C-alpha cells in the first residue's frame, strides 16, 4: 500500500465544521435556552416591566438593547466552545477522533472557534427580534450600518470563542462551573451591557478598570452601530480592541489546547 496524497486541509476543516453544525442543530433548543434565557429575562424586567412602572426612562431601551445583544453574543460564543471542550477533553476523551483527523492541531482548534462564532451569530439573530418585540419601539434603532454591525459581531464572537477555547482547555473540568461564575458573571455586569461606557464617567475608577473587560467593546460596538445616536466608543477603537483581544485569546487558547492535545 503506497501512501495516498494528503487530504486538502480545507476539506478536513469543512467536515469538522459540518460535524459541529450537525450537533449544534440537534441541540439548538437547549443551546438557545442556555445562552439566551438570561438576556431575554433581563429584557423583560428592564426593557418592559420597569419602564411600565416608570422606574426607568423609556429611552433606556436604546442603551439596553445593544448591550443585551452583546451579552447574548458573548455568552453563546464562549459557552459553545468551552463546554463541549471540557467534556471532550475530560471524562469522555471523545475529541480524540478529531485529533486523529488528518489535520494539524491548530486547524482543529481554529474550526472550534469558527463553530463558536457561527453559534454566537445565531444567538444574536434569535435574541434581536424577541427583545425588540418585548421592548416595543426602540428609539434610534437602525440597521443602516449593517457592515459595521457585522464587523463588531464577527470580531466580538471571535474574541469570545477564542476565550472559550482558552477556558475549555485551561480550566479543570471540576472547576468549570465555578470559573464561569467567577469570570463570566462579573464580565457581564461590568461589561457595559446595561449602561453606556460614557455613563461610567460618574465613577472614573470604574470607567478605566472595565477596559480590561472584552465585553465592553462588544457592547459599545453594538451601541455605536445599532443606536449610533447614543454616546459610544469610536467604532475604529472598538474593532481594533476586539481584534487585539481575539489574537491574544487565540494565541493563548491554542497553546493550552495543544498542551491538552499532546501528552
Amino acid at each position, binding site marked *: 500500500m503506497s501512501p495516498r496524497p494528503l487530504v486538502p486541509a480545507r476539506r478536513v476543516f469543512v467536515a469538522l465544521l459540518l460535524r459541529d453544525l450537525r450537533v449544534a442543530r440537534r441541540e439548538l433548543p437547549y443551546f438557545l435556552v442556555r445562552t439566551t434565557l438570561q438576556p431575554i429575562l433581563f429584557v423583560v424586567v428592564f426593557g418592559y416591566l420597569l419602564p411600565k412602572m416608570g422606574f426607568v426612562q423609556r429611552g433606556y431601551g436604546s442603551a439596553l438593547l445593544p448591550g443585551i445583544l452583546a451579552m447574548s453574543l458573548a455568552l453563546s460564543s464562549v459557552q459553545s466552545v468551552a463546554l463541549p471542550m471540557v467534556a471532550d477533553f475530560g471524562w469522555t476523551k471523545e475529541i480524540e477522533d478529531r485529533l*486523529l483527523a488528518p*489535520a494539524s492541531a491548530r486547524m482543529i482548534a481554529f474550526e472550534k472557534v469558527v463553530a463558536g462564532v457561527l453559534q454566537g451569530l445565531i444567538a444574536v439573530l434569535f435574541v434581536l427580534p424577541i427583545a425588540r418585540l418585548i421592548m416595543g419601539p426602540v428609539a434610534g434603532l437602525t440597521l443602516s450600518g449593517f457592515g459595521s454591525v457585522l464587523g463588531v459581531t464577527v470580531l466580538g464572537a471571535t474574541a469570545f470563542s477564542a476565550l472559550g477555547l482558552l477556558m475549555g482547555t485551561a480550566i479543570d473540568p471540576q472547576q468549570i462551573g465555578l470559573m464561569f461564575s467567577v469570570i463570566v458573571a462579573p464580565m457581564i455586569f461590568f461589561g457595559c451591557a446595561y449602561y453606556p461606557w460614557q455613563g461610567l464617567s460618574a465613577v472614573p475608577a470604574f470607567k478605566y478598570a472595565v477596559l480590561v473587560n472584552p465585553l465592553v467593546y462588544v457592547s459599545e460596538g453594538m451601541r455605536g452601530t445599532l443606536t449610533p445616536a447614543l454616546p459610544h466608543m469610536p467604532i475604529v477603537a472598538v474593532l481594533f480592541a476586539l481584534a487585539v483581544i481575539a489574537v491574544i485569546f487565540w494565541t493563548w487558547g491554542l497553546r493550552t489546547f495543544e498542551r491538552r492535545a499532546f501528552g
Partner: protein
Amino acid sequence: MTGTTTPEVSIRTRVLRKVYPGKAGGIVALEGLDLDVPAGEFFGLLGPNGAGKTTTIGILTTRVRPTAGEASVGGADVVREPVAVKQRIGVVPQRPNPDRSLTVRENLLFHGAYFGIPRKVTAERARTLLETLGLAERGDAKVDEISGGQQQRLMIARALLHDPQVLFLDEPSVGLDPQARLELWEILRRLHAEGRTIVMTTHYMEEADRLCERVAIMDRGRLLALDSPAALKARAPGGTLIEVILDEDATASAAGARVLPGVLRVDVEGAVMRAYAERPGESIAGLIKAAEQAGRRVMHIALSPPSLETLFISLTGRKLD
C-alpha cells in the same frame, strides 16, 4: 524473517524516550526504545501497566510528543509530518471514545468526511463495516444506547473506515467478556490476513501468544525481549514454574532448593521462592522440605506451565498484572 529482500519497514523508532513532567525530574515512561515493524506484521507490545506500551502507541499515533529520539510510520516522521502519519493509521483506543453527540452510523460517516473520502464511498464502507462487525441493526442508535462490546467494535469500524495501512490497538480486549474477546480475535486475524500491519498492546499473555507474529516484551519503559511467541517461550527458563510462598524471607530455603535433582533454577524475591522444574510433581515435596529445613513455613504453592508469563517473570521478577 527469511529471504534476502529487506521487507518494507512500516514502523521504526530509534532511541525513543519520553519523560512526563513530574516530581524529581519527571516520570520516565520510555527509555530509549528501538523498534522495527515490517509492513504486514501483526506485532504485539506486551507488558504490565506502566511498561510504556500506551506511551509508545501514543507517540506512534502522533498524540504524545516524544522527549527525544525518532519515530516514523510508513516513512512519515511522527513529529515533523503528523498529518501524513494520521492519514496512514487507524487507532482503536484503550477505552472507546466514540463521538457521543452522533449516532453509530454518523460516527463512521463523519470520520470518512474528516479523511476526505467521497460521501458515497464512505456510506458504502460504513454499511459493510457495520455488517461485518455485527452492528448493522444499531446504525441509527445513539452511541450511549449500545453496549461496551458494541462500542469497541464501533471503534474498530471507525479505525478501518479510511482503509489505513497500519492499525493500532491499545489493550483492545480489556473490559470485554470472553465471548466478545474471541470475536475480536477473529476480526483481528481477518484484518491481518488482508495484509494490514497491526500493532497491539496487551497485558494478556494469551492474547499476544495467539495473535502476534512477533512480541516485544516491555517493562518500565525498556524493551526486555523481542521475538516470535514460540522463540520467546523457548527462551523461558525450562520447565514449569513452581512458586512457593513462605511466611518469611526465602533466601535460606532457596539454597537448599537449588541442589534438588530436577530443579533447573531458583529465584528469590522476599518471601517468594520461584523454582523451575522439569517434573514439578516430583520436586514439590523437596521444595517444601527445603523450606522447612530453613525454618520456614509454606503458605502457598502455585504452578505455571512454560509460557510468555513465566518468561516475563524470569525477566523481571514480577508478574504481569
